[in-house]
């Protein structure tokens, strides 16, 4: 039984898992859906009540019925590198590929339906609340007056994109940024705006969840950091990520979050305040993990490989958040 990995060729983080699977003797087929019709081929037939399907890439041929797990890591848009790419061909290719894969009995990390839903930050915040995780006061609005009133109630605010996406024309980054007290909120009317109470943090926490295995890392905040340096991805680094134990109540809530979200993998970001409380910021259903593993030595890639291979606690099914083709 084969593990299918959908990702780009340059994804060296996926390489870390491919290596572990290779060491365990687990067959792997890795392909980028962007290469469909240009290096990647598929075929499926539905005849006399039976279904058969195959994928091929780089001289490898795998039966859809021979898949034990599918890891949706960093796949490109289907057929994006075809000889004559188009939106129509992309949709045709997406329907064919993912439609066939949904027919397999393989376990998903993560199932596309669960992944799509899990990307919505408002939904994340609500689910985190439901699971008992502390969530900073948050407003998402296009009403300038609502923003002004929120700023009166919570004078120390940050703003961040609702989607996590960043504008591309021209390419810009939108880090989580502190909002000045006298800010004019008129432009809130021109786009949904996410305002959140700033947590005066003493550390950032990245908790990587694989099945029921939780691996947390902590990066202490620079005690001399400016309050404007909110986003750890843009702030100067004064410490590597260090392993940290997960408080039992947080662990319980995170596992509930994963189960309710039907996720087999999630990268949770928390801000730790002066009282040691972990405030939920977001859960990236396909968040990066290589930088954490390299700093902490935590066996994240090996744990993912184990889950994909069906070993250990990861061998359980839907209760831990993985979905099968019946979804």
């Amino acid at each position, binding site marked *: 039984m084969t593990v299918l990995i959908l990702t780009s060729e340059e994804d*060296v*983080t996926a390489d870390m898992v491919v290596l572990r699977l290779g060491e365990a003797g687990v067959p792997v087929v890795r392909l980028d859906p962007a290469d469909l019709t240009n290096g990647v081929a598929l075929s499926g037939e539905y005849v006399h009540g039976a279904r058969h399907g195959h994928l091929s890439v780089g001289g490898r041929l795998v039966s859809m019925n021979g898949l034990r797990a599918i890891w949706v890591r960093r796949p490109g848009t289907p057929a994006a590198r075809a000889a004559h790419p188009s939106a129509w061909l992309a949709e045709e290719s997406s329907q064919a590929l993912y439609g066939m894969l949904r027919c397999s009995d393989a376990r998903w990390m993560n199932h596309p339906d669960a992944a799509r839903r899990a990307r919505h930050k408002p939904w994340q915040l609500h689910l985190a609340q439901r699971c008992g995780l502390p969530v900073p006061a948050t407003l998402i609005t296009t009403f300038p007056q609502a923003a002004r009133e929120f700023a009166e109630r919570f004078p120390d605010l940050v703003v961040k994109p609702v989607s996590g996406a960043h504008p591309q024309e021209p390419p810009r980054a939108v880090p989580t940024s502190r909002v000045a007290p006298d800010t004019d909120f008129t*432009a809130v009317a021109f786009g949904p705006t996410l305002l959140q109470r700033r947590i005066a943090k003493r550390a950032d926490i990245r908790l990587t969840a694989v099945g029921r295995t939780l691996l947390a890392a902590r990066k202490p905040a620079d005690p001399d950091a400016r309050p404007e340096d909110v986003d750890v*991805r843009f702030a100067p680094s004064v410490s590597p990520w260090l392993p940290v134990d997960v408080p039992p109540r947080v662990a319980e809530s995170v596992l509930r979050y994963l189960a309710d979200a039907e996720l087999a993998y999630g990268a949770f970001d928390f801000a730790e305040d002066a009282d040691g409380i972990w405030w939920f910021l977001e859960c990236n259903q396909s*968040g990066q993990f290589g930088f954490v593993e390299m700093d902490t030595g935590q066996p994240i890639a090996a744990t993912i490989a184990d889950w994909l291979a069906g070993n250990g606690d990861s061998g359980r099914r839907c209760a831990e958040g993985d979905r099968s083709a019946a979804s």
Partner: protein
Amino acid sequence: MQPFTLNYARPAVQLDVATPYAYDSGLQLNILPDGRIAATDHATLRALGTTTSTAGSKTHFDD
């Protein structure tokens, strides 16, 4: 008429350096010019930032 959130945008940092590894379809891994597996060379990966959270990639929301 610019959305409020974009008042906080900054130019994206473009990664100008070419990745020193290439994909080997036989191994299904990226390989350095000297034949070593790129994923085992943490110094190179750190220098390139290829495994890090990048605050919003071009094609993926989940970093």
